[in-house]
Each structure stands twice: as structure tokens, then as C-alpha cells.
């Protein structure tokens, strides 16, 4: 009998839940479970992990024997670009300062949207950088430089 995955969503979900639950059990293997009278630090995470694994297995079974479902589709490009933009921000904020970090973040984020116009994105980046500086540094007194040490700020 060949089993085919009828429901990709449930399968993906189930697999991830089982994996995460197992990971949690592994990472937390040294945390003492304790007993009901003396609950240890491992009690909650391990119990939750077991529940997670259980549900994951049920979902996998549902995926094989249950009703069909939609296909999975992950927006790779948008994800990489947006998260990349945020990571870039985190990395460049202190060395380069708010203005440049914002500029870079905006430009990278804009690549995710077609059509990409470099000049417009730069302009938008500058505008947003100005607003952010006014709002957070002048307005709220955030402890960050507009232009960081690397740029001689």
C-alpha cells in the first residue's frame, strides 16, 4: 500500500511539531522533572514538549489518511529580504548610526517589491531616516547616535 501525503500543511506542521518537541526534550534533558509534590524546572517544558509531539504525530496521521488540503507555499524571496533588512539594521545601528542603518534597511526592504527603483528607494530611505531621527532621538531621547563612530559621528 503506498501512502501519499494528502495534506501538505498538516504534514509540515506535524513534522515541525514533532521535531521541535524532540529538540526541547533533548535540550532540556538535564532539567529535573521532579514529582507532583516537588515540581522541578523540567516539568513544564517537558510536559508541553510531550503534548507537542503527540499533536504532531496526530497531524502527521491526519495528513496521510485525512482530507486533502492546500499546497504549501513559502515566500522565500520576501522572507529573506525583509528579515535580512532587519538583521542589517541590528548590525549597523551602533557602528553606523540611525540614519545610515535606516537607509540601508529601507533599500534592502524595497528590493522585495517589484519594480525596484534605486533612486526612489534611496529618497524614501532618507525621508524615513529623517522622521525616525526626529521622532526617536530628538523626541524620545533614544540613546543612539544619528551618525555612528565608524562615520566619525
Amino acid at each position, binding site marked *: 500500500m503506498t501512502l501519499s501525503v494528502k495534506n501538505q*500543511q*498538516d504534514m*509540515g*506542521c506535524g513534522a*515541525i*511539531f514533532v521535531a*521541535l518537541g524532540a529538540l*526541547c526534550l533533548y535540550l*532540556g534533558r538535564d*532539567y529535573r522533572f521532579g*514529582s*507532583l*509534590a*516537588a*515540581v*522541578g*524546572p523540567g516539568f*513544564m*517544558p517537558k510536559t*508541553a*514538549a510531550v*503534548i*507537542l509531539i503527540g*499533536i*504532531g504525530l496526530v*497531524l502527521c496521521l491526519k495528513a496521510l489518511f485525512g482530507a486533502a*488540503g492546500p499546497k*504549501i507555499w*513559502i*515566500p522565500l*524571496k*520576501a*522572507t529573506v529580504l*525583509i*528579515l535580512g*533588512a*532587519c*538583521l542589517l*539594521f*541590528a*548590525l549597523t*545601528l*551602533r557602528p553606523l548610526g*540611525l540614519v545610515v542603518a*535606516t537607509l540601508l*534597511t*529601507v533599500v534592502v*526592504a*524595497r528590493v522585495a*517589491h517589484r519594480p525596484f527603483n534605486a533612486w526612489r528607494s534611496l529618497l*524614501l*530611505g532618507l525621508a*524615513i531616516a529623517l*522622521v*525616525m531621527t526626529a521622532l*526617536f532621538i530628538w523626541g*524620545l531621547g*533614544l*540613546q*543612539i547616535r544619528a551618525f555612528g563612530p565608524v562615520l566619525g559621528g
Partner: protein
Amino acid sequence: MELFANLHTGFAAVLSLEAIGYCFIGALLGTLIGVLPGIGPAATISLLLPFTFGIEPLPAMIMLAGIYYGSQYGGSTTAILLNLPGEASSVITAIDGYRMAQQGRAGTALAIAAIGSFVAGTLATLVVAAVATPLAEVALGFGAPDYFALVLVGITTCIVVANGSVLKAFAMVALGLILGTVGLDQNTGIGRFMFGQAGFADGLSFVAAAMGLFGLTEIIGNLASTDAGARRTHKVGSLIVARKDLKAATPPIMRGTVMGSILGILPGSGALLASFLSYSVEKRVSATPERFGHGAIEGVAGPEAANNAASQTSFIPMLTLGIPSNAVMAMMIGALLMQGIQPGPSMLERQPELFWGLIASMWIGNALLLVLNLPLVGIWARIIGVPYAILYPAIVVLCCVGVFAISNSAFDVYVMCGFALLGMVLLRLGCEPTPLLLGMILGPMLESYFIRAMALSRGDLTIFLSRPVSATLIAVAVVMVVLTCLPAIARNRDRVLKE
């Protein structure tokens, strides 16, 4: 009567030009950010929290109240004008609200939403004022098992109203519970899942999680969908509400207020449950149910009233018990703690003017919104009309700076990205992020109360059933789960939630 004396104390503390000014700014900012697509009340409040840090506790709370209502109203506005609900409970409003917008009746929908919310808010404020003191007194008698059961109910309501499969929602809560354990364990002092990173000591940043799970995931989703560029706002039209519309809207508003007031008190997603229930009830009670889904004013009036009433009464468990009903309340508690205020039964005794002042400012926030937003709705509509290509990079930067600003650490931005990735993948697989967030917030409480309860009973689980309060609450939770699983209700629920 004591009720009016208390309210008097509250209003006296709050009716100063300065306080109203703060409320006004809060309401303005809250609506402004709340109206931006992809930023719902939780994200809005977390973004605007830094603004409240430099002020005294009472004005800060009042400003927060303004922000709170502003963000709710902003969410309703986008739901009606753009079919983009700002948060879960605006989903119901969008059903008939957006239809009305398409029929050129956006102004009426917005006006009724605002009026209904105001009426509901006023009545709910009275409920809060009436119930707060007795409840706080009862709460003083609550023990750990009772608090545990209360939090359990909170988690259960969240699972029950989650979009999609109950099984997956349950799993998301479990995952949230696990993530909630990251950090230094309160009870034993050991670090759990910290990987040697000091940044994890206080646990995963709630704000970072909210931004990642809701804000960034939304943006990624929008960019990936094919019509991300074209976001047409429908003309707002006249805001003047026809008499027959007002007449038609009044009974749903009344019913919605009652439902919302009661359901909001329960920890958990009371507001969502209330608006969902209100919609079902209005449809059932209407003489012409086939109009629902095609622009029935009752489908906007009832749920909006229920939503706002529940939002108001959800302050009750937060203020009297110190338990957040939902993600937004958790932020409010965080903000209050930053101000050195510990919400709970003791707050009523020790700082009554703060307590009643907050309740009074809730009403003022409500009133200001009505006065403020109806005339300004044209501006909000224009903001929504700004091309998404300009808005979304601004939102991304706002999220990054906002998260950084809360703890002055870039570490949390990384945490936010992690949550965004997790949220995005799980969303594509059919899992809702809200139960995850709530699991993260309520998890530590659940654990702590459980440990204390077990310490009390020396490991005897029947303590939960032998105490009347916890036994009742646990029964409520069980009944809710069973009802949701029953095929008849499951089908009904899926049908309404899928719309």
C-alpha cells in the same frame, strides 16, 4: 452610593487639562499607528510604549488608555475601509463592514462602529466600576489553585476562538508554553534554554515576539501576494447616519454590550469571542438573516459594541487580579510595572486614585475617540491610501527601532527576526500565531501557580477540584473545549471563521 463616590474620585483625578491632553495625544497616535496596515493594537501599543516612559504614572496610564482605544479604532477603520482587520476581533467587523464600504456606505459603517463602541464603552465602564471592588475582595480570597484555573480558562478561550484547527491552536499554545520557559527559572534560579546568552535571562522579549509574529509576518505575506501594490480605499461618503440605520443598530448594540461585558471579564480572547458570538446572535435573531455578509448594519453594530465592551471589561482581571486577559493587556501590565505600579487586589487598597483614575480615563479615551475620529476619518482614509510600497519599509524600520528602543539592545531585533521566521512558516502551515503569544505570556504564570498549588497540596492534584472556585473554572474550560469539538458547533465555527 459607593459606586459613584469611586467614579467621582477617578474623574477628579483625571479631569485636568493636562490629563485630557495626554489622552488626546495617545488617542491620536494610537489611531495613526493602528490604521497602518499590518500593525494591530498589540504592535501599536508596543511601538508607542516608549513615549509613556518619561511621564508620571497617572498621565502615562491615561495616555496608554488613549493609545489603547486609538489602536482599536484604527483596527476597525482598516477593517471597514480595506478589509484588512487590524486585529483578530476586527475580523468580524470586516465581514459586513467592508461590504458596506463597497456599497458606498463606508461613512455609515464607520459612524455606527464609533457610536456603538462609545455606547458600549460607557456602559461597560459602569460595569467595571461596579464589579471591580467586590471582585477584588473576592480575589483576596483566591489561592494559587484558583489563579491556576483562571489562567487555564484564559488559555482555553484562546484555543477555542483561534482561526483554523483546534488541534493546531493547542499545539501553538504548547509551543508558546515552552518558549515562555526560556530564561532564568523563578523558582530554582537555573537558566533554561539559554545557550549561554545573557540576553535571554529575562526571557524572550514579548515586544520582539509580537512584532515578529504579527508585524513582520504580515508584511512578508503582503509582499508575496500578487495584489500587494493595489490597495484601493473606498470613498468614505457621508458620515451622517440615517435614522433608520440608527434604529436598526440600537438593539444589536445593546445585545453586543451585554455579551461583551460578560465575556471580556474572562481571561483570554474575550473580545474575539464576544464579537463572534454577537455576529452569530444577530444573524439568528434577525428577521432577514440573508442580508448578513452583504452589508447588514447589524453585523457591524453588534460586534463592534461587543468588541469594545469586552475590551473595557478585560481591564477587570488585569487590574483586580493582575492577570492579563490577552496580549494587549499584557503590554499594559508591562507598562504599569515600568511605572512602578503593580496591578492586583492590593492596588485597589493602596492606590485607589490610580485605580479609579484609570477607569475614568478609559471612559474619557472612549469619548475622545468619538469626538476625534469621526471628523478625522478622511485623514485616516488618506493615510491608508498611501501606496504600500512607501508604507511597508517605514513599518519595518519602525518595528526595528521600536524593539531596540524598549530594551536598548540589538539582541531583541534578532529575537524578533527569529519569531518572524517561525511565525511565517507556521502561518503557511495553517497555524495561528496568537495562541503562541498568549502561551508565552501566560505560561510562566501557569507554571508558577501550579507549583504553588502543588506545594500547598503536597502533590495532590485533586486540590483543583476540591476548591469551589477552581473547580468551577476548570469545568468552564472543559465545557468550552468539549463544545468546540462537537461536530455541529465545529462546523458552525469553521463557517463563521472562514469568512
